[in-house]
Every structure is written in C-alpha cells, then in structure tokens.
C-alpha cells in the first residue's frame, strides 16, 4: 500500500521546479502543514508567501504575483479555496487571465468527521462553470507528479484537487501514460465504459478487472481532466460501448457525471449513462473508505451498475 499522499508529491515537484525557476512561488493560508508544504517554506523562504487564514486574499495576492510574471501555486483546503474564494477565482484569476495554479488540498470528503464545512463536494461544478480556468483531479502519485510538472511550466490558470490521505497506486513508476487534457485509457473494453476521476479511479480499475472475470468487457478511463474534459474519449465510449458509468467524489450536480451525460445526450442519446456520486446531502460521518462504501462509491457499486446496464441493453 502506498504511503505517500498526492499533496506530498506536489511539494516534491514544486521544490524541484523552484530550484531551477525562481518565479515559482507557493502561497499558503496557514495551510503549509496540511498541504505538506512546510519543506518548501523552509527550503525556499524567499519564494514562499504566508497570508494567514485569509483565503480570499490568498487568491488575489497570487493573481497580483502572477500579473508580474511569477508562477504562483496557492494551496489551501479545497473546501475554502473553491467556494469561499470563488469570487476571487472568477475575477482575479480566470477573468483577468492570471497564471495562478490553485491547489485544493484535502479535497472531497477526505476531512471525514470534520463535517460539511471541510468537505468540497461542489468544487468541480463551481469552478468548471467559470470560463478561463481548467480543473484537474489526478488519481495517484505518479499522475500527480506528471500533471504538476506540466502545469508548472504552462501559463494558464488551473485548479487541482487532491485528497488528504495516501491513495493506492493506479500506475507504476515508469508506467504512467500521460497526455495533457487527454483521459488515460486504463483498460480497453467493448461492453461498458467506466469513467472515473481522482480517488475513484482505483475502484474503477478494480471493477474493470472483476467485470472482465464475469465476462463483461469493460473500458476504464481515468478522466483526470475535468475541464477541458476529453470529449473525444467520452464520444468513443458512447459509440464503442453499450453503456457508460461515471464515478466521482462530488455532488451529483454539475460534476463529471453531468458533463459526460451532457456530451452523450447531445450526440448518442441511446447510450445509457449512470452516475455514481456523493449524495445531495451532508455525508455520513466516517473515514473516506467508510463513506465511499456507504454510498456504493466502490468497485462493488460499479459492478452492480454495470450488470444492471448489461441486463437492460
């Protein structure tokens, strides 16, 4: 079992980049510890800005830095960064077009028992609705590394959500296919497609293997890029398989399931899309795995839906 959380990988990559690019700047809102960025703050104090518990100004200050040529990465709990600061994300980052990278840490329901104040089940919907900013939910540490390396060298705004805890590896060192803004095909299949993002990708891959054992050929896609979503991969799934299942750690409204449904409904509406998501309610108290299992956000939930789909077609 992997013991390195994705947030640690982000720190590693940013330290590597800061060593060769003095414009790389990290900002935190009293969140350096929870973002695993203490090592960065200690090693590069001149490239680190602490703003205190002030997420609105975190984003605006990052935008000001970016407008003067810096490459700011603003890291704060996804819950606060994505909705408390939404106005600043909309105006100062996306509308002004500043090269700010927003790192939403402890995303989704990874704060567990801390409750809805600390959960970010609306971030995909909220930020994707703003023109001019990209949204990413990487699945594991290997993909997170490649994504952050790419983002540290481009000039456009982006929001990246990672969870708090280490997640099981989806890929391996040296075997992590990655193309910017292209879903990664984890498994080819012709019966059903499972499209997953973030921490749900591991469950999707597991489900794909188990479904194959049951004779259901399953395509599994890692849709780490929510915006721009890989429309072509979704269309291929709609045309080449008989049904689509989406799974995400997000509200049922405005997330990946809604995006996939919108694409399929507009192109190939005969193909059923079923979505697994968190409920439209504060989630049950528990650790991530307990919560996911409670709502069927796991391999079992995917398999049940896949079997239902196959029976229905």
């Amino acid at each position: 079992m992997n013991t390195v959380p994705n947030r640690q990988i982000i720190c590693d990559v940013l330290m590597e980049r800061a060593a060769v690019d003095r414009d790389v700047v990290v900002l935190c809102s009293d969140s350096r510890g929870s973002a695993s960025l203490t090592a960065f703050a200690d090693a590069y104090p001149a490239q680190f800005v602490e703003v205190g518990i002030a997420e609105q100004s975190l984003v605006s200050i990052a935008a000001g830095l970016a407008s003067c040529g810096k490459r700011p990465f603003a890291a704060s709990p996804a819950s606060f960064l994505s909705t408390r600061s939404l106005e600043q994300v909309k105006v100062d980052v996306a509308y002004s077009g500043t090269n700010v990278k927003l790192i939403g840490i402890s995303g989704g329901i990874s704060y567990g028992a801390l409750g809805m104040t600390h959960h970010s089940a609306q971030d995909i919907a909220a930020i994707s609705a703003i023109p001019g900013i990209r949204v990413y939910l990487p699945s594991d540490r290997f993909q997170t590394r490649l994504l952050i390396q790419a983002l540290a060298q481009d000039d456009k705004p982006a929001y990246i959500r990672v969870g708090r805890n280490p997640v099981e590896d989806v890929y391996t060192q040296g075997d992590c296919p990655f193309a910017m803004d292209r879903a990664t095909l984890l498994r080819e299949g012709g019966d059903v497609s499972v499209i997953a993002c973030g921490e749900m990708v591991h469950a999707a891959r597991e489900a794909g293997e188990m479904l194959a054992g049951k004779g259901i050929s399953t395509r599994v896609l890692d849709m780490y890029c929510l915006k721009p979503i890989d429309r072509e991969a979704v269309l291929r799934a709609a045309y080449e398989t008989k049904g689509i299942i989406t799974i995400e750690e997000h509200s049922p409204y405005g997330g990946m399931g809604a995006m996939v449904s919108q694409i399929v409904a507009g192109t190939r509406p005969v193909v059923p899309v079923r979505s697994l998501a968190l409920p439209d309610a504060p989630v049950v108290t528990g650790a991530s795995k307990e919560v996911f299992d409670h709502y069927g956000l796991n391999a079992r939930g995917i398999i049940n839906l896949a079997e239902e789909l196959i029976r229905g077609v």
Partner: protein
Amino acid sequence: MNGKELTAKSFALRKDVVEMIRRGGGGHFGGDFSVMDILVTLYCLHMNVGPDRMDDPDRDRFILSKGHSVEALYAVLCDRGFFSREELATFSRFGSKYIGHPNNKVCGIEMNSGSLGHGLSVGVGMALAAKMDERPFRVYVVMGDGELAEGSVWEGAMAAGHYGLDNLTAVIDRNGLQISGSTETVMAQNSLRERWSAFGWNVLEAEGNDIAALDAAVIRAKGCRGRPSVIIANTVKGYGYSAAENQAGWHHKVPTAEQYAAAMAELEERRVNAL
C-alpha cells in the same frame, strides 16, 4: 504641466466623461467626478506608465479597485495616449471592449475589476513581486469609501501591513456617499485613520479634489519606508457639476439634455477659471 493646467485638464476630462455617459447610455457619474483629480495626479505626476511601456517590467502598476469609476479612467488613459478617442467612442456599444468596468483587454489596464474589495490584495501581490525581484516599481490602488465595507479589503490591508509593503500606496476616494445614501448611515466608515493605522499603515489625508494637495500626499507616501501608505482623499461626489455634488442620486445616472448642457457649460467655465 503645472498645477493650474492639471486642474484645468481634470475639468476637461470630466467633460469627456459626460460625453461618454451620455453616448453610452449609462455610467457612474458621481464617482467618476470625485475620483478624477486622484487619477490625474497619479497619471500625470507620478506613475511611469505609458502606452509604450506596458511590457516594461519596471512600470508602475495601477488598479482601479472601485472599478465602476471606469469612465474617469478611460478619459485619463485616452488623454495619455493609450487609445484613441474613436476607439473609446464605442464605450458600452455592442461588442466593445470599453465596458462599464475595467478589463485588461484595454491597453493600460492591468487587472479586471468591478467586484469591490479585490484590488488591494491584488496590489499586495504585485508589491510582493516587486520586492522579490528587487524591482523599483510602485503599486497604486484606488478604492471607494463604500468599498471598505468589503471584508476582503481588510485581508489585503492586513497582509500589506504584515509585509511592510512600502512600495504600495492605497488611495481612498472618500466622497462620503454610496448608492443608498451617506456612507455613515449605510455602514459607518468613521475612524478611518485609526483603522488603517492599526493595520500597520502610514496614514495620510488630503483634499481629494485638490491636485497640489494630492501630489504632496503621494510624495510623502513615496518617502515612507517600511510601511504601506494610504491616502484618505476627502473628495466631493459629483465634483465639478454643482447640481450633482454631494447627491447620492448621481451615483449612476445619465444626464438629461438640460443637465448635459448645464454640466458641460459649468465644467468649461471651471476649466477656464482654473487657468
């Protein structure tokens, strides 16, 4: 250009604002008129900006955080050669980039604004960038007094004080009025000096429709070390057209034909008298 000529210019630019609002069918008349002398002071006497310097990393940075006064900013930028009068004549028309709040598609505008309470923190980021790269440029942020009710202003004020950003100057267009009436009845802004001082700022006060007084305050702000400076510029909303002065109803208004004629005549008279 001497003080008299700049004062005359600021009345002439108010005439441009009246034309803009009349043709565009809308605009924030009162705030445009109160802030005009602040803009003229910064653009004509202090900031090293110009249409040929927008790529210069050492240019001073300006943010109109009270973005609704964009007509005044357009008039000044046009006067400084950032764009032509013909271009500006498209203000508020279909497809125009000259819209009712600042956006950085327009030459001379650094950051988009309009949602109040953002500019100061953005300015903090710019001032920090200057410090990091040891660049000499200064950052100016103009806010409204009603805007100070936004909590995010004080997040920025706190950060600027914490980091001792002496390359940052905020100017408050203290005209005492907002849409619903007096700032003191809507949400009291009293004790402004004490508030800013408590946040670690060097607090200056000036007559906000007096270019010589504003100039002196900006000079003092530039000379202050170790702290950001704020200039509380005591202005008159609608300054320049007496029927609009201190009238909250002129916050956003298109003058009638009679008001237009009266405003243009009075502004011309005051322009000539200033010389």
